[in-house]
């Protein structure tokens, strides 16, 4: 579902630098009513970070520079924990990790931020361990300083090597090389012992290193989220006690970007949803699906600790967010589209009975006959109206929204003068028609007062898209008959 509503698009735009930050990104999940205090804290920390980014941009540039150098040492840390002996390359990488960490700590701490999970620990002792000569170079070797015996062996070896260099006699050289080889073996022996020692001496610092790894991950993710929020003018989601979802000028970033590429503008939506059933009706191509995806995406982002793409998002905490739409593959499971819908709905119903959540249902029963469809949708809406969960129904069925159900509709084409439009041009090509519809369509939502007739735009849209005029004429006749028959909303 989450990919369906465009979550991945957002996550991909986050600039997460370190392997540890990337891991934290993978672990992201929406919070629930039970662990709301954690979510609250995360959003507060995000607020602090956004502020801090504005105050100290140069510091963050430096931190990011260090982030770029951070490599994944978790494998070596694990090996060390398992009492294995590390090799030179692992010592080298741990040494560099400690050096870069100290630099990050040095830049980060003066800012006085208290972000949950970011607790850098002093790794100077680790650097000292791997830098006995205290040179602070970003290199590593099994240094002479580790052992007197090692130093002596190496000096002996060096003298032999000098002799080898000037020796011209081949058999003499072979003798010298033999001697050298013995010293090579001794050197390897002492180096091995030192590696063992160092691996053991690192053990007491493993917890600190892991703490720092975790801190880097959280900080990296937090900075990424804060930068995204600033760049895209996102706002803090406001979680409250009342059961509601109010969104003002909500946007769907993926669709917004797509439209921008085509030089079109995204119409942001504003809506106020209440506990129980809510309905959104409106013409075909009225953007209703985009509307519920926008609601779902922003609600989900809020629950995952992100800032949201809206001027205001006021909401209660939901234990679940479900989007039922026909983009799903029920056919694969041997069910008809309708069958799939029922199965999915049953799953939602289980959650709705147990706790409070958000359910968005797109054109339920669209694939079955309209008479039964209408009745089913009406029944669903009536029943779900009894629960705390917020249910949002998109439907094009007539007369299904019962009294007392929160009802919005897409303004659509109601302000368009079709007669004028059609008289201006004899017929449109499908492509022109689509463009025209998009230009004329008002995607904004408005509350519906009881007994407003559901707008009948299908015929108009068909005309705009160039449906054969003969068919249009026949349809008009039938329309007049039917309208007389149905008259009002039942």
């Amino acid at each position, binding site marked *: 579902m989450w990919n369906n509503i465009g979550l991945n698009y957002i996550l991909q735009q986050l600039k997460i630098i370190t392997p540890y930050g990337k891991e934290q990104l993978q672990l992201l999940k929406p919070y629930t009513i039970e662990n709301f205090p954690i979510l609250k804290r995360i959003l507060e920390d995000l607020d602090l970070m956004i502020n801090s980014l504005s105050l100290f941009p140069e510091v963050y540039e430096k931190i990011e520079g260090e982030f770029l150098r951070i490599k994944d040492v978790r494998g070596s840390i694990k090996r060390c924990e398992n009492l294995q002996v590390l*090799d*030179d390359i692992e010592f*080298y990488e741990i040494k560099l990790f400690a050096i870069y960490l100290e630099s990050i700590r040095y830049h980060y701490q003066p800012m006085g931020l208290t972000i949950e999970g970011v607790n850098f620990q002093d790794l100077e002792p680790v650097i000292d361990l791997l830098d006995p000569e205290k040179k602070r170079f*970003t*290199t590593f*070797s099994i240094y002479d300083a580790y052992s007197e015996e090692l130093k002596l062996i190496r000096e002996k070896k060096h003298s032999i*090597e000098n002799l080898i*260099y000037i020796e011209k006699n081949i058999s003499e050289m072979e003798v010298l090389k033999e001697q050298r080889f013995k010293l090579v073996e001794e*050197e390897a022996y002492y180096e091995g012992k030192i590696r063992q020692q160092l691996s053991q001496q690192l053990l007491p610092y493993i917890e600190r290193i892991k703490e720092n790894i975790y801190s880097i991950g959280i900080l990296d993710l937090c900075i990424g989220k804060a930068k995204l929020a600033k760049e895209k003018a996102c706002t803090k989601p406001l979680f409250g006690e009342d059961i509601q979802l109010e969104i003002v000028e909500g946007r769907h970033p993926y669709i917004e970007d797509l439209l921008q590429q085509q030089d079109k503008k995204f119409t942001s939506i504003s809506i106020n949803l209440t506990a129980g059933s809510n309905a959104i009706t409106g013409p075909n191509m009225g953007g209703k699906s985009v509307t519920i995806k926008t609601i779902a995406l922003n609600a989900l982002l809020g629950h995952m600790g992100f800032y949201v793409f809206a001027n205001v998002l006021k909401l209660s905490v939901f234990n679940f967010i479900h989007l039922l739409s026909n983009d799903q593959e029920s056919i694969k499971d041997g069910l008809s589209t309708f069958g799939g819908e029922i199965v999915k709905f049953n799953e939602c119903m289980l959650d709705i009975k147990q706790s409070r959540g958000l359910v968005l249902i797109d054109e339920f029963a669209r694939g079955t006959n309209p008479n039964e469809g209408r009745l089913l949708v009406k029944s669903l809406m009536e029943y779900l109206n009894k629960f705390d969960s917020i249910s949002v129904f998109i439907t094009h069925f007539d007369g299904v929204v019962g009294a007392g159900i929160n009802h919005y509709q897409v303004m659509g084409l109601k302000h368009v003068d079709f007669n004028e439009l059609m008289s201006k041009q004899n017929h449109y090509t499908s492509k022109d028609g689509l463009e025209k519809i998009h230009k004329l369509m008002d995607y904004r939502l408005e509350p519906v007062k009881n007994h407003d007739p559901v707008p009948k735009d299908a015929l108009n849209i068909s005309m705009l898209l160039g449906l054969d005029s003969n068919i249009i004429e026949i349809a008009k006749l039938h329309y007049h008959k039917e309208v007389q028959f149905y008259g009002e909303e039942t």
Partner: protein
Amino acid sequence: MNKLLEKIFQLNSLAIVGIEKNVGKTTTMNYIIEKAKGKYSLGLTSIGIDGEKEDQVTGTEKPTIYIQKGTIIASAKKSYLSSDITKEILSTTGIQTPMGEIILFRALSDGYIELMGPSINNYLKTVIKQMKALGSQLVIVDGALNRRTTASPSIAEGVIVATGATVSRNMEEVIEETAHKVSLLQIELERNYDRLKLVKKALKQGKVSFLYDDKLQISQELTALGAENTINEGLTSGANAVIISGVVGDRLVENLIKSPIDLSDKIIYVEDGTKLFLKEENLRRLKLKGLKLMGVNEINLLLITVNPKAPDGYSFDSHRFCYLLHEKTQIPVFDVISNIGVGLE
């Protein structure tokens, strides 16, 4: 030789390639290393082999050389661990090979090392750059004239070719073979800027491409091997040139020679002469048919080194060997064992 050596040590990078396996390339390497001691700081790496780990383990010579303290090496983790020098890690590269990540390290003592470098041109370039940045005055790249590498010695500013008595018991044959390989390395370079741009583009984007005057057509062929029909069709339909990324072998060329296609004034472009694996006879027949072989990357062949002794025990007269080889190739020739040189000025 000293003048030539001076010239060599002014270069940024030098590739040493052997005509074939066990020809004495390592001896040449050791010679250069010795001449540098105390005067020039060296960086060392090798052109690795593409392909599976087994190939890497069994398929090729991984030179074991005796190096001096202070040398910087770019080689795979396996070779770091197996070397017997006292060493210091300078940096890791993130370049993965079947033998492990390529590590840059410095020798803190003399000793033995096996070179296992990257097998891809871009990685090789990166690694050479890094060694220069770490202070190496001359980076020596150990290479081979071998089908199994994508990377090429043309990446280095200068190239030395090593040959020797192991090629054949018959000195004339060694000279013929060496001269032939040298002439392959020295194919004409495309100098026309616009043409060169097109050819380079083709080499990047496809394995087999065609030039119709100044229009480029890149075929879908995944390898030149087996693309004979496509190549024939291309040439028949009026292409002036075929551009082949990768190896051009005898089979491809024999196919062209046998076909009724008019090859006069047609060109086959390759990256450089190290991609040509052709018998002398086929080279001659191509020439007779009027077809030109041209390259894009320059191979600056500075010197041919010879080892006149074979491990089997026989050896050639060094003076004669060097003289005849120089006469045939017009390249300076030098015997690294007996210090005899011809044409060195």
